């Protein structure tokens, strides 16, 4: 039997038609179909236009109001209402909105709905976040997922795999964000086009699940079709913690073919910042020292985890955010929000002068809750810094990890976190 990479093995296990070899067209049956309040309403219209009356399996469908939630206006409220109505009409129990939900990709994991060897179809490009859990998350548009809702299956071209071999341990202030910004910096925003990124190697042990989510989340920013991490004791323990039944991790066969192999020594990385307008614009934080910021944003499906909030709190504890800078912190889910409250993180962050939001996709995609004016600059733990991404076309966004974002909040400009914490130099 041919040696296969992880993606091919997971795809093969879900194929109802076709052979899972790179380049081939296969038909897949997913474990979960995920839609939100932006992609869902379009999909529901197409579902009706297809003549479908019942979705394939209500228990496998997850609907999350997260983009324009809580609704900022009547139009957005209408879109959420359509999502809620679809759930009610078809007996879909997995419908989540503010107060009981969060950002879809973080929430999906937290609910124990994604684990080793599974496939998630999501009407959102960041569905690839599921790769952190030794699963395949595959992003689609609304009409594709209308077809998946109607038929319970969808076609896909099997991607080749690119192996990312991780070694070493990250140093201080280096996180999952820096790993993925380094990878995208190296291969470019379409460097993984038509491919699945496969992450593995001895360095994995030094990357907790939250760090893996930050990495997997931005696979699409390298153009990848999807991505997947090797499973290990950390991912297995995470499944148990989320109440999932044990399942064997899917590992690559020895001698599996890869389109390319990329080595990243975690110990050699320093905190990176991606300059606008591309997530591929990563440079060491020192190179941007002194870049003034108007807004600091910590949150989103890549970096709104408890790990990120702990990093922010550690930076801000007993300190004040610089005058003229505003900081918005958005825990990714209600559960993370409550845990951060219980740990005293939220109080510490609020005391420093930051605004804390309910979980929402919010300003990350330029929706609401922290939009930038013309000429403004933000540093954000989000995943896209395209022109106008967070507001006015003449605003700009720098991408960085939570340590670096919090350091910028303290200094009012981009600065290395260690330097932000150092005592002020004397004038002598």
């Amino acid at each position, binding site marked *: 039997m041919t040696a296969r990479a992880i993606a091919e093995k997971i795809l093969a296990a879900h194929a109802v038609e076709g052979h899972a070899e790179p380049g081939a067209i296969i038909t897949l049956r997913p474990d979960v179909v995920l839609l939100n309040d*932006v992609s869902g309403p379009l999909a529901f219209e197409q579902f009706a236009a297809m003549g479908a009356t019942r979705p394939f399996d209500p228990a496998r469908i997850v609907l999350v109001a997260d983009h324009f939630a809580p609704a900022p206006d009547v139009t957005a409220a209408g879109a959420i209402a359509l999502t809620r109505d679809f759930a009610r009409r078809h007996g879909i129990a997995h419908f989540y909105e503010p107060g009981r939900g969060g950002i879809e990709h973080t929430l999906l994991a937290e609910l124990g709905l994604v684990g080793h060897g599974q496939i998630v179809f999501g009407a959102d490009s960041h569905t690839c976040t599921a790769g952190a859990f030794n699963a395949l998350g595959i992003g689609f548009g609304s009409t594709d997922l209308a077809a998946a809702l109607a038929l319970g299956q969808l076609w896909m071209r099997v991607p080749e795999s690119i192996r990312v071999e991780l070694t070493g341990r990250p140093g201080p202030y280096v996180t999952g964000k820096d790993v993925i910004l380094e990878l995208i910096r190296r291969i470019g925003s379409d460097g993984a086009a038509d491919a699945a990124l496969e992450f593995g190697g001895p360095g994995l042990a030094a990357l907790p699940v939250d760090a893996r989510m930050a990495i997997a989340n931005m696979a699409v920013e390298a153009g990848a079709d999807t991505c997947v991490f090797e499973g290990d004791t950390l991912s297995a323990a995470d499944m148990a913690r989320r109440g999932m039944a044990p399942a064997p991790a899917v590992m690559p066969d020895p001698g599996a073919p890869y389109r390319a192999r990329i080595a990243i020594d975690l110990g050699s990385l320093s905190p990176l910042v991606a300059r606008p307008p591309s997530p591929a614009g990563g440079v060491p934080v020192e190179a941007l020292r002194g870049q003034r910021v108007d807004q600091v944003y910590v949150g989103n499906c890549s970096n709104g985890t408890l790990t990120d909030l702990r990093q922010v709190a550690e930076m801000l504890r007993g300190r004040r955010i610089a005058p003229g800078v505003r900081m918005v912190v958005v825990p990714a889910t209600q559960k993370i929000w409550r845990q951060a409250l219980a740990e005293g993180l939220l109080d510490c962050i609020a005391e420093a002068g930051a605004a804390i939001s309910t979980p929402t996709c919010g300003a990350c995609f330029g929706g609401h809750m922290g939009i930038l004016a013309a000429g403004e600059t933000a540093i954000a733990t989000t995943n896209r810094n395209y022109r106008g991404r967070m507001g006015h076309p003449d605003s700009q966004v720098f991408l960085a990890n939570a340590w670096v974002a919090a350091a910028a909040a303290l200094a009012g400009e981009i600065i290395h976190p260690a330097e932000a914490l150092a005592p002020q130099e004397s004038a002598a």
Partner: protein
Amino acid sequence: MSPLREGPIFEGRIHRFGDEVNTDVILPGRYLALRRPEELGRHCLEGLDPGFVGRVRPGDILAAGRNFGCGSSREHAVIALKAAGVAAIVATSVARIFFRNAVNLGLPVLLCPEAAAALAEGETARITLDDLMIRQGTRHWQAQPLGGEVRAILAAGGLVPRVRQALAS
């Protein structure tokens, strides 16, 4: 939406764009609660070129560079382009989700780096879908072939009719 069928001919003026035209600049996030084509079409490419909607005429063609449509999976981007009057896109390369969305809604995307580089702003080009040829004046280019599943969706007139047929049978 008029779904694409094999065989049509598109003739329109070229609007040139560069590399990495992402779906955020095609249809900025603040408009994502909108769904009606006429509402979305008014904001087409607003993030990159606010004057585009005033210049584009029905049947016009975009010539773009590498990784067109990258980023967000928002199908609103394809709906906005179609509603603004864009009839076809010629690009060096295109992001996977955007390409699927375009095929599903019947917006032809032709991959042809040579044509994408050569076509100039304001020129009139002609595209024939049955043979995937792009012609401008005396010049012509052959676009990359389409996969079998893509051709099947196009032949059905888009993904909605294709699934409707599947559900009816």
